[in-house]
């Protein structure tokens, strides 16, 4: 898929990346899906037919394609479409919070570890150590101390992904440190912080964005899992995980109530994964990953 693209003489690197992206069909599909998911989440209050918590006791467990309820209703007669739209909104909220946390904490640490050798040993050791620590245990601890909530789930998932972000930013810093413009800035006596902020960080942004597209689906699944277990978002706030755990109780009577929220999670994650893969290929043509 990464056939060498002939560099157009005037083509900027941004144009090249865009061309690459548009050539990747799966990537385009992911990008379109991403826009749709984002639109659904942003516009949920306006496009949802009902409030996600409004019960209709007279019409419980309606099949999809019932008049008035395009995707059917759950055991309390709540509209599944509305709940999925709001659930997507909550998923992305947790996702954005967690990804922001991983960047805010991870990027400076990665920059510092890559730039100053004496710091690298400590930061890298800590990163290796915590890289694969089970986020669920973190979330269990947080839920035990501070109670289960949307923000605590986001904090646990964000912290869990800080090590990945540190690793990526550190690698980028190590690579960029030897660039000529950085050496030039150094010879002009620019301070380390200044070099990191004005020369290295801006050039590390593409890698940070790619990593964010990797972390995002993991966080979305993580949130659904925590909420499914009762350790994340708390009812009545709609969440795709809570919808699944509710639907589990009447899964034989209404399989669609369990099918649809799971499909929604899958579409969100597929959108990020496909788009992220394409973005990585476009930024690093010739790479195999």
């Amino acid at each position, binding site marked *: 898929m990464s056939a060498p693209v002939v560099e157009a003489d005037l083509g900027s690197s941004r144009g090249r990346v865009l061309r690459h992206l548009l050539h990747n069909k*799966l990537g385009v599909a992911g990008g379109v899906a991403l826009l749709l998911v984002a639109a659904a989440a942003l516009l949920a209050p306006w496009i949802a037919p009902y409030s996600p918590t409004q019960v209709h006791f007279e019409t419980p467990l309606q099949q999809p394609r019932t008049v008035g309820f395009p995707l059917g209703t759950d055991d309390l007669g709540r509209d599944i479409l509305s709940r999925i739209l709001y659930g997507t909104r909550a998923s992305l909220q947790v996702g954005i919070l967690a990804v922001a946390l991983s960047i805010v904490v991870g990027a400076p640490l990665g920059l510092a570890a890559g730039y100053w050798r004496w710091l690298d*040993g400590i930061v890298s050791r800590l990163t290796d*150590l915590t*890289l*694969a*620590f*089970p*986020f*669920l*245990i973190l979330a*269990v*601890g947080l*839920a*035990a*101390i501070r109670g289960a909530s949307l923000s605590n789930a986001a904090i646990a998932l964000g912290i*869990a992904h800080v090590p990945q972000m540190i690793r990526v930013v550190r690698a980028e810093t190590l690579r960029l440190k030897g660039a000529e413009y950085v050496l030039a800035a150094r010879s002009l006596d620019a301070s380390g912080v200044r070099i990191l902020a004005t020369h290295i960080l801006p050039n590390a942004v593409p890698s940070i964005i790619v990593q964010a597209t990797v972390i995002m*689906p993991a966080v979305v*699944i*993580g949130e*659904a*899992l925590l909420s*499914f*277990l*009762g*350790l994340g978002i708390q009812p009545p706030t709609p969440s795709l995980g809570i919808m*699944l755990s509710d*639907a*589990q109780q009447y*899964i*034989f009577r209404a*399989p669609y109530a*369990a*099918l649809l*929220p*799971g499909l929604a*999670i*899958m579409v969100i*994650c*597929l959108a990020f*994964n*496909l788009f992220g*893969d394409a973005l990585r290929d476009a930024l690093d043509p010739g790479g*195999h*990953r």
Partner: protein
Amino acid sequence: MAHFLLTRLWQSVVTLVLASMVVFAGVRALPGDPALAAAGEEATPEMVAAVRAQLGLDQPLWVQYWRFVKNLLSGDLGTSVRTGTPVSELIGATLPVTAWLTVYALGFAVVVGLIAGTVAAVRRGTVTEFGLNTLSVVGLSVPSFWLGLLAILYLAVGLGWFPASGYVSPVEDPLRALHHLTLPAVILGTGIAAVVMRQTRASMLANLEADYVRTARAKGVSQARVVVRFALRNSLVVVVTLVGLQLGGLISGAVVTERIFGLPGFGKLTLDSVFSRDYPVIEGVVLIVTFAYIIINLVVDVLYSILDPRIRVTGANS
């Protein structure tokens, strides 16, 4: 090699001590006064004070920590507030269930991931590769617990191929255990299989183009031998590291898989203790997972150094 092992062992011991401190501090940060809880709601302040002294909670923190470590070393993790059973007993009863489940899931993931990744790399540019790649992205994007619900609905209840819940120990009845554990293990392993497949494919593609493979081919080594003996062997190093990195996800996934399939494992114990605020059990659970995590990481590092001798040379700081 001995030097490398000793350094890693020493690092692990330091980490274990640090982890025990974090858990000790974490439990003290929990809301609520354990002395008040133990003495009951109608206790007078004097009675609470007496209980506090009895539990040793009036001692300085470092004395309490020392006693915590001493108990830990003798295998005493306290007793469950809810059931009065020793925590070590609860963990001993549930841990094997989770161990069997995760080992089975990991075995499935590695075998499927390695084969799929190798095939995708060898069949580069074909429909097979495209299909396998698509499958792996879907595998990454599917929440495993949802897949579990669907599997119960269609494979276990609908077709009746597998039991929908329950546990049989592989020591007592290996065949029935296999039957009971297959569905949960495959569900738990799917996401990891996708990760292993992607990494194997990427690493195989790089290795198949490497100079030593070209040399081997020029010497007339057969395709099968090149793939398995040369490229795959070098890709294994990457996979071992990767499996180490999947550990956290594996443990988290096991908790929810047990919940769905009604397995009486460690995950169920964890959730039960959180919802009933059974602090001694939470403390024990977190400690055990952390310790297991550190020890498995040590094993992965050692395995890694056996597979790739270069790592030993650069030393433990790599």
